[in-house]
């Protein structure tokens, strides 16, 4: 059994763990997507799952979300075993997953609607988050009238408005253009700083992972395990504008690339 090697374990005190996955395996028929994967997600921090395509990042995220059953192993959120979707977690989808027949307002309020919040209250809350993500004035627009970046803001507002403790984000920025993506990354850092939520963030991009994460879990190709956990500890206190020039940032990017390049043919 391969235990995750923790390099750079610089946690000063015992960190408060919001989500933990233990010995998760997942088979799709004959395909072993995840094998014996264990990982802990500290509260209030952003953990990235980074790894080559097809290594099971989405699978792991959906298992944490309670959308998929693991073949074996268990997930705990706040010490309670996960048996299905719950109010403590909200999901942000790569393809936004907006209702094309509903306005921005209804889309943002849809999570609250499904959780049984009364119409006037959920619309008030949705309106607040629409403003927060910078979409004020677009309440009555429809998804097809928005750009990709704006659509993902809607998806983000929907996930934020239910006020869950854990935010699960599956490559949320991969379908938007590079400029928007950078803006999103900055906004995400701010969000992590102001909201005391636990973020689990899937990405393909090494730079993105290093830029936004408190902790990066590197997954190996199928059957996937955690090969390494990296904590870019020094970066969080630095000025957002200078991170990309920081030598620690560049070192970590290089190191991750060095360990992943073996798996990229």
């Amino acid at each position: 059994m391969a235990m995750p090697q923790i390099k750079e374990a610089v946690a000063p005190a015992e960190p408060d763990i919001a989500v933990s996955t233990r010995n998760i395996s997942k088979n799709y028929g004959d395909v072993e997507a995840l094998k014996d994967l264990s990982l802990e997600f500290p509260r209030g921090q952003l953990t990235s799952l980074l790894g080559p395509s097809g290594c099971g990042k989405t699978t792991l995220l959906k298992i944490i979300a309670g959308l998929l059953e693991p073949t074996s192993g268990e997930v705990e959120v706040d010490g309670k075993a996960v048996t299905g979707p719950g109010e403590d977690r909200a999901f942000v989808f790569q393809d936004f997953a907006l209702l094309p027949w509903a306005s921005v307002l209804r889309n943002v309020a849809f999570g609250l609607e499904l959780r049984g919040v009364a119409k006037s209250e959920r619309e008030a809350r949705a309106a607040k988050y629409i403003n927060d993500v910078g979409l004020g004035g677009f309440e009555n627009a429809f998804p097809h009238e928005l750009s990709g970046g704006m659509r993902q803001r809607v998806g983000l507002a929907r996930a934020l408005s239910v006020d869950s403790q854990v935010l699960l984000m599956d490559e949320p920025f991969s379908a938007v253009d590079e400029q928007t993506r950078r803006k999103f990354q900055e906004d995400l850092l701010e969000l992590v700083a102001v909201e005391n939520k636990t973020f689990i963030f899937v990405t393909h991009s090494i730079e993105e992972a290093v830029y936004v994460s408190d902790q990066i879990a590197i997954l190996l190709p199928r059957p996937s395990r955690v090969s390494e956990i990296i904590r870019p500890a020094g970066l969080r206190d630095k000025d957002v504008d200078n991170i990309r020039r920081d030598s620690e940032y560049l070192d970590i990017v290089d190191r991750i690339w060095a360990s992943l390049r073996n798996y990229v043919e």
Partner: protein
Amino acid sequence: MTIWGYRLPGMSSLLIWALLWEIVGRSGYSFFVPPLSDVVSTLIQVLPSPAFQKALYETGYAFLAGVFFAVVIGIPTGIFMGKNRLIDELLLPWVNIFLSAPLTALVPVLMVLFGFGMKSIIITTTLFAIWIIILNARAGVMQINRSLIDMANSFGASPWESFTKIYFWAALPEILGGVRIGIIRAVKGVIIGQLLISIVGFGALFELYSANFLMSHFWAVLIVLFAMAFTISEFLAYLERRVSYYAAKR
């Protein structure tokens, strides 16, 4: 269509055909083709007559009841088939068989089973309409974006909520397309049913007119039927266009 720079309103080509009809009718070419003007004046006489009103009422009733059952049974059945592999494998062969079957041949059997009345006509109408409604609802559900369903589940949607808030709406463009074709088939169904059973509605009226060689009456009623079927179909096409803004963007 434009002629000499004038934009003609839609379907103005019908005028030419109407003119042709009038000429052929006046030439006395055939007893079966009275001039259009005669047909129209008969039409105006016939419309308020009790026999016509009764036929219209009976046909409308059978039509609406038949379509109602086809829609109310067909849409959920199609959605369930799209959602559930097992139900799909059980029902799909039957749906396909009935979709292409010559249902007219079944009408006599229905008459034996359900009698020579309204009931058989309603069932005939439903049978004509329902299969394409099922198939389209099924196709609509099968193309749903998986992540919409994951999204609803992740917020804790109950099966009923995902049915009414996701599946139905995501499949609506296909469902409406199916209902439109289904309704066009229902018009056929209700008329064929009435003709074969021929003691109610327009079936009785046709029987009466053709037995008495009242050709302009016959044509008048036919025009009314065609116009009604066409109007219904256009109305449904309009509804379909109303949802097409998201049909392409799901």
